[in-house]
């Protein structure tokens, strides 16, 4: 039976679920009432969940299936920040398209609750439930605009491929159960053998799909492009954070237990995934003139750098360094990518939906000469692009630096070299947007003014990116502190 302690430990998750239920009910009962309260309520519940994190007692839940530790708290904070920022963005984006409804925010809250649960999970069954709660909500968010061709297409691709990945994950969990007699991650201790290796491989495939690692990345560009921009921002930040949190937990549990994994097979497989993801993600992003697709490929590339952090976390000599680098990277990426998508949302054509006819809706030429027309918007976009490229002084630089430092600590020099080289490749396509904004004459019609809430989201994200870039110590110290309570 749940005690008061259990409920306090689960409070962030419970608050997000409660928020989703409240928004569903308010949608049908306050129908005639004023619009615009939905995003406010969402942000309030996200803030309440984030505020509940420091008060959550550190404890094991559900007989070892979950744990409310500092690591889970950090992930919860990142998810809540992503939810709040994307709700601000959603308010402006949906309102201008007359699609402001409680369902959007209810789905986002359900998705966030799944992400928070996944950050706490230490059991494959609970993780599967959390992944499904998160994924089903995100599939629906991708289809949210309904009209137009792109959103349903994106949602369908995401749903079919995502369900396939979930099935593979479940199959892997079944083999894992067969090998160890339990679905707990800690059951790997002392285990081994071919059955366990097969199970872990399938689980890795399922998770690699969720984090968009090559070669399980094919869905990402179409889904990111077709989904409504606020939903894309939310899934880029939240799904990645939650899935990487569980992947890191799994890898840590694996190296803590099984002798066969340490350094050899695991490092080889993850290393191959990381190198492929970094190279392919960056290579495919290079020719993209469509900024939204470019950000999708960039999201794949970022998964590669995060995998480097996970590999560092799997080595005993750089365990703490690698794990905290993953956390720092997730936080920096979440804020940066939501900021970048917010700017994109402002630049988007204001049709009811971006349908197939407006493939140029996100073309880089729309950014030409933006600096002379909207200096602040262009400045913010430049900050986000530099942060994604990993140029100082931005949060993205801090994140990349800590990941590569951790990899160097693990003596994974090959990964560091590939990482740095592909980052340099990335500078080219990120800077193309900056060049268009600052050095090309304006071609397109005057862009619409940013709705106030979107402007706030952009300003907050830009401020966070720059502040973390100049003084990274609070964030890195927080990530290290999160590990001490793990």
């Amino acid at each position, binding site marked *: *039976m749940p005690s008061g302690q259990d409920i306090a430990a689960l409070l962030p998750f419970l608050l997000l*679920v409660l928020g989703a239920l409240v928004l569903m*009910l308010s*949608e*049908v*009962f306050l129908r005639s009432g004023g619009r615009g309260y939905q995003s406010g309520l969402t942000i309030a519940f996200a803030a309440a969940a984030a505020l509940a994190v420091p008060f959550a007692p550190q404890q094991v839940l559900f007989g070892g299936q979950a744990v409310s530790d500092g690591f889970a708290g950090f992930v919860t904070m990142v998810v809540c920040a992503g939810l709040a920022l994307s709700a601000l963005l959603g308010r402006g984006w949906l309102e201008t398209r007359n699609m402001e409804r409680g369902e959007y925010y209810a789905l986002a809250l359900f998705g966030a609750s799944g992400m928070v649960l996944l950050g706490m999970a230490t059991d494959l069954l609970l993780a599967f439930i959390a992944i499904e709660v998160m994924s089903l909500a995100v599939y629906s968010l991708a289809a949210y605009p309904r009209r137009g061709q792109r959103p349903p297409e994106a949602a369908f691709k995401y749903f079919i491929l995502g369900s396939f990945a979930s099935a593979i994950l479940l199959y892997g969990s079944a083999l894992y159960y*067969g*090998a160890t*007699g*339990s679905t707990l991650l800690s059951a790997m201790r002392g285990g081994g053998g071919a059955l366990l290796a097969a199970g872990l491989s399938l689980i890795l495939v399922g998770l690699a799909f969720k984090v968009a690692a090559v070669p399980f990345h094919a869905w990402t560009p179409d889904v990111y492009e077709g989904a409504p921009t606020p939903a894309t921002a939310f899934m880029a930040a939240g799904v990645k954070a939650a899935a990487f949190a569980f992947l890191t937990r799994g890898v840590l549990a694996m190296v803590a237990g099984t002798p066969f994994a340490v350094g050899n097979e695991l490092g080889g497989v993850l290393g191959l995934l990381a190198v492929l993801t970094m190279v392919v993600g960056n290579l495919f992003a290079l020719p993209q003139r469509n900024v939204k697709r470019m950000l999708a490929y960039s999201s794949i590339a970022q998964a590669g750098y995060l995998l480097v952090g996970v590999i560092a976390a799997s080595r005993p000599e750089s365990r703490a360094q690698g794990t905290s680098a993953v956390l720092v990277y997730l936080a920096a990426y979440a804020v940066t990518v939501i900021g970048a998508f917010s700017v994109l949302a402002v630049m988007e054509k204001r049709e009811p939906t971006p349908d197939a006819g407006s493939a140029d809706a996100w073309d880089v030429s729309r950014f030409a000469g933006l600096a002379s027309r909207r200096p602040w918007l262009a400045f913010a976009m430049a900050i986000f692009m530099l942060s994604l490229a990993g140029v100082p002084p931005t949060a993205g630089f801090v994140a990349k630096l800590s990941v590569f430092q951790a990899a160097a600590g693990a003596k994974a020099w090959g990964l560091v070299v590939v990482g740095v080289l592909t980052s340099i490749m990335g500078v080219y396509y990120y800077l193309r947007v900056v060049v268009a904004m600052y050095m090309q004459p304006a071609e397109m019609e005057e862009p619409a003014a940013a709705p106030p809430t979107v402007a706030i989201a952009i300003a907050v994200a830009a401020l966070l990116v720059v502040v973390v870039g100049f003084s990274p110590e609070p964030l890195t110290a927080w990530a290290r502190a999160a590990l001490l309570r793990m």
Partner: protein
Amino acid sequence: MNPALQSYFPLAVVIVLAVILGLTLLGLANLLGPRRPNEAKSSPFEFGSRPSGLGRDRFDVKFYLLALLFVVFDVEAVFMYPWAVSLGDLGWPSFVVMAVFGATLVVGLVYVWKKGAIDWSRE
């Protein structure tokens, strides 16, 4: 084999027996049964009446919503049987847990109801 899996051995036996039994019955019927087809026998069975229209027909999306709601509450009922049987041992805390579970589903029902999804007369 892992000791935890050994308790599943009877299940494996049942599955093997079920497959053998099913195949045997189908095979025997195929081998021994007489075959004298006529028009009435080879037409599709539709509750004894003469079949009309095609098997694949468009039907109202309302049926789908109703079926989905049925599944949700059907599964809830499945959860409730073991809970109801052992309620005496579990006591009031388990009652609260199940009440929260039920209330969450009711919120969904209220939402669907107010949205008009199960309003049959609405066009």
